[in-house]
């Protein structure tokens, strides 16, 4: 069976079904609405006492994240405005408390269900959870913990609420499978925070399993196997062991530097979309931020963020990074990233149209506001500025002129900013790659954006499914272009990084490193894997590999060759 893998790892154990305890609620007419309201309030008090107990238990066990969820539940139960609505209904319609509570919460649940934001939408689970808690108290239903079937249980449920987790003996639970849910459901968050594998969205699994059935779940692939054969069991046991060993090895690299077998040092940095991503960078041993996509601060809103707002956000990021470098890419919108409040008429070829630096150079105020915020934030850490989509020297010079003008402005206003801010550019347009040696004289660094460079070099729209097979980072042209860019950079003694998705490809990272790329910037989750790959590669050996690649005429051949070559180091 297939579902969505939401917390990685492999669990091999036995099914424990989590039954739902709340039955259908009946509508009853009551005589004494005062007594009914009193009953409701007593149930509220009891539920708060229960929640207090849970919170205390969580705090003792250092399960702070969960404790906070129950604190929020306590607030929901303490919401007099909400319970005022329930009381109104009891009073006016002369109905039982359970019914009124159900009707009023249902209205809110519907509202939550309509939200576009997945995270907020999932929060209806909190509401269902407290409603069930109070309803159970009203009905006098006592919760029983399911009897343990073994010491290695995989919980299978239609859905799991935070309260369900509070009751579980987690020392015996090694995985979760649910019918409902998404990546941001409580079950997913909990599973990830305990570090146990979980698969959600597995259709009709609840009716298919019995307590005690043998089960295997793969939280990465989203696979669930019931009553596996001996061969399947063997395969997954091996896979599990390998994964565990590999993860232990990767974790050991967290505070280590990146250095090839023949002693060449590299920087592994991370790509982020905002301050919320910084913790993950540091937790995974990132040596800096090689690409901060500032446009995310501009998306999903109705107007431009002010200079002050941008400054606060940028400052928080450089401060959190404590002196480690942070490369800020200036606003890169247009193409597939639309800003509703920036009125750009639809274009026939948005990727070849009005986007990124082109928009910024045409909207001076927008551009200058961002540059001012960046310069001001430079006082608080190691900040670098990078311009996207540069295709001609005129553009680079125009962008740098704006930066200079803004610097002068700030000086006049006696506002401090760092003096020696490095200014670089993305190399993602083939024309820029071809004249990289000219650009290298006028910037402090290059960052190769492989996603767009591939798209523009091969003339393949990366969003078009019909030609998706033509989009490949193994195209022989790409290796030639990247080598060109790296050589041009080193000729002028500037550093060069790669921040596209190809940098996180474990087969390509060692190749890029041997080509002379100084920094690879990848998503936080890939940092340790890429460090592992580089630490286990020899540049001298890879140079021979590059010579081989340069002889190969097709992407297919290159990909197959690199696949075979790296099999021995990938996964230890």
């Amino acid at each position, binding site marked *: 069976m297939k579902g969505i893998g939401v917390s990685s790892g492999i669990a091999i154990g036995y099914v424990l079904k989590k039954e739902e305890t709340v039955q259908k609620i009946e509508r009853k007419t009551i005589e004494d609405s005062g007594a009914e309201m009193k009953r409701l309030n007593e149930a509220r008090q009891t539920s708060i006492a229960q929640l207090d107990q849970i919170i205390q238990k969580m705090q003792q066990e250092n399960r702070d994240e969960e404790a906070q969820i129950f604190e*929020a539940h306590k607030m929901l139960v303490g919401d007099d*405005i*909400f319970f005022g609505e329930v009381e109104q209904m009891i009073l006016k319609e002369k109905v039982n408390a359970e019914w009124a509570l159900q009707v009023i919460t249902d209205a*809110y649940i519907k509202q*939550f269900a309509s939200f*576009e934001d997945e*995270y*907020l939408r999932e929060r209806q689970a909190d509401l269902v959870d407290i409603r069930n808690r109070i309803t159970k108290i009203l009905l006098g239903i006592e919760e029983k913990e399911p009897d343990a079937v073994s010491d290695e249980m995989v919980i299978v449920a239609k859905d799991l609420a935070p309260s369900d987790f509070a009751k579980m003996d987690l020392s015996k639970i090694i995985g979760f499978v649910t019918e409902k849910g998404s990546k941001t459901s409580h079950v997913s968050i909990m599973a990830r925070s305990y570090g146990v594998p979980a698969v959600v969205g597995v259709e009709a699994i609840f009716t298919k399993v019995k307590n005690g059935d043998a089960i295997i779940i793969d939280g990465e692939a989203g696979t669930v196997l019931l009553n596996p054969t001996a061969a399947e069991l063997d395969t997954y046991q091996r896979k599990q062991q390998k994964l565990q060993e590999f993860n232990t090895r990767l974790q050991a690299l967290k505070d280590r530097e990146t250095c090839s077998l023949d002693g060449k040092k590299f920087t592994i940095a991370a790509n982020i979309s905002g301050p*919320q991503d910084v913790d993950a960078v540091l937790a995974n041993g990132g040596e800096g931020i090689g690409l901060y996509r500032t446009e995310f601060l501009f998306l999903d809103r109705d107007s431009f963020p002010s200079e002050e707002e941008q400054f606060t956000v940028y400052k928080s990021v450089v401060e959190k990074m404590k002196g480690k470098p942070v490369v800020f890419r200036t606003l890169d919108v247009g193409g597939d990233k639309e800003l509703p409040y920036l009125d750009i008429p639809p274009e026939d070829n948005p990727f070849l149209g009005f986007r990124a630096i082109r928009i910024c150079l045409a909207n001076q105020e927008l551009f200058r506001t961002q540059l001012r915020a960046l310069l001001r934030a430079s006082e608080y850490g190691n900040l670098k500025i990078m311009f996207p989509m540069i295709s001609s020297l005129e553009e680079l010079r125009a962008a740098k002129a704006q930066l200079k003008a803004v610097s002068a402005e700030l000086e006049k206003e006696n506002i401090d900013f760092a003096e020696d801010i490095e200014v670089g550019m993305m190399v993602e347009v083939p024309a820029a790659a071809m004249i990289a040696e000219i650009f290298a004289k006028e910037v402090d660094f290059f960052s190769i954006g492989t996603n767009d460079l591939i798209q523009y070099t091969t003339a393949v729209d990366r969003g078009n499914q019909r030609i998706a097979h033509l989009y490949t980072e193994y195209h022989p042209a790409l290796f030639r272009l990247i080598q060109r860019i790296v050589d041009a950079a080193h000729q002028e003694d500037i550093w060069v990084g790669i921040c596209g998705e190809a940098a996180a490809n474990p087969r390509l990272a060692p190749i890029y490193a041997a080509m002379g790329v100084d920094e690879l910037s990848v998503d936080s989750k890939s940092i340790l894997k890429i460090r592992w790959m580089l630490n286990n590669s020899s540049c001298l050996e890879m140079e021979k590999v590059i010579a081989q690649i340069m002889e190969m005429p097709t992407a297919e051949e290159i990909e197959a060759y690199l696949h075979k070559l790296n099999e021995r180091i990938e996964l230890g």
Partner: protein
Amino acid sequence: MVSMTVTLNNKSGLHARPASLFTKEAAKYQAAVKVIKDGQEYNAKSILSVLSMGAAQGTELTITAEGEDEEQALKALKELFDQNFGE
């Protein structure tokens, strides 16, 4: 009455934890605190009311306060937004 306009920068919007921080802070003050989103008013001291706004990242909100300690209330709430609710 005092008011301010703020933007939600934290990744997941005003969900359980930030919403509870927000409501708790608002409840500390005597002033009546309201949140206005898309022209609709919500009670800042009711967690359910705040959650039911469905305010996601990037949402712009107007917050008003009316009462003796209105200035302090707005100042404290602004800080929460500035710090992205500690995320």
